């Protein structure tokens, strides 16, 4: 339970951790580092396999806001369990995927989605990997060009004799 509580003391450490993660995130952009086992509820699987697979996909695309790098499918926090129950009930009531995502973003904001909609303020999130890739490409091309102009190690420079 205490994982939900907030106090000012761990903030600095958390900020440092996030900075470190940011650096790691830039390095390994897009790679999912941890594959956690899905959280277990007291509920049985949904009877309809189509509903069950939608349930699994939707809950894996919603962020648990308590432990912010886990999805609500993976998290064992109570809020995640409450949100899973919500998704379940909405699916059984015949809600569309869009309606479920809208329900969540109306309450928690776009941050609740691991795949935020493409709009002006999220442009940098969607654009960053391509910018990184382009930057990396430019650097590689420059380095390779520079090196290809240098003499090979075993080549005796002309006029050395």
């Amino acid at each position, binding site marked *: 339970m*205490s994982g939900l509580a*907030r106090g000012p003391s761990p*903030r600095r450490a*958390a900020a440092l951790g996030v900075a470190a993660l*940011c650096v790691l995130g830039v390095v390994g952009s897009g790679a999912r580092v941890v594959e956690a086992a899905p959280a277990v509820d007291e509920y049985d699987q949904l009877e309809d396999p189509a509903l069950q697979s939608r349930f699994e996909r939707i809950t894996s695309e919603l962020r648990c*806001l*308590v432990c912010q790098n886990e999805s609500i499918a993976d998290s064992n926090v109570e*809020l995640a369990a409450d949100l899973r129950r919500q998704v379940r009930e909405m699916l059984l009531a015949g809600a569309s995927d869009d309606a479920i995502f809208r329900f969540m973003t109306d*309450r*928690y904001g776009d941050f609740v989605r691991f795949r935020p909609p493409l709009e002006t303020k999220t442009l940098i999130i969607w654009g960053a990997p391509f910018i990184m890739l382009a930057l990396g490409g430019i650097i590689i091309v420059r380095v390779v060009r520079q090196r290809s102009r240098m003499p090979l190690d075993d080549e005796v420079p002309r006029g050395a004799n």
Partner: protein
Amino acid sequence: MWKFILPITAFIALAILFAFGLNPNRDIHALPSPLIGKPAPQFSLTDVLDPTRTVSNASLKGQVYVLNVWGTWCAACRQEHEELLAISQQRVVPIIGLDYMDERDKAMQWLKQLGNPYQAVAFDTDGRTAIDWGVYGAPETYLVDAHGRVVFKWISPMTAEVWSQEFLPRISAARRGGA
């Protein structure tokens, strides 16, 4: 030339990133609430202290009020409790409590022992009201105006400073705007 410009630009970019990212005053867990400016979600729950009584925010329409989300399991709520008591003494606005993910006995005992700053405390047994309000932890404190719109959300323990700097100006603005 590039040999100098590139590392320096990279350094400045990182410095700016860290200046924001490592700022100790910034709460990295505080997310902007999409509820700001929107009608406050309605709730009708039982009162923690009296299960036969109903606490509903529909009856608060027309007045500015504060909704404070707490639970006995939350250490930071204990930390802010003193301040909530002091605020309730000022009698500026009614404070409504939303007891979240809690047990009734424990909540009753908490209020008896530490004092009760709330006009009424709604008991959110299954967390549905909390989901409607976009609660993702405790304590969280919302300010609702006379039109029933959420004006402000504070994520962290309440302090005297936060109350006077973030809440009081908004309360008087809300009163000027919609009395």
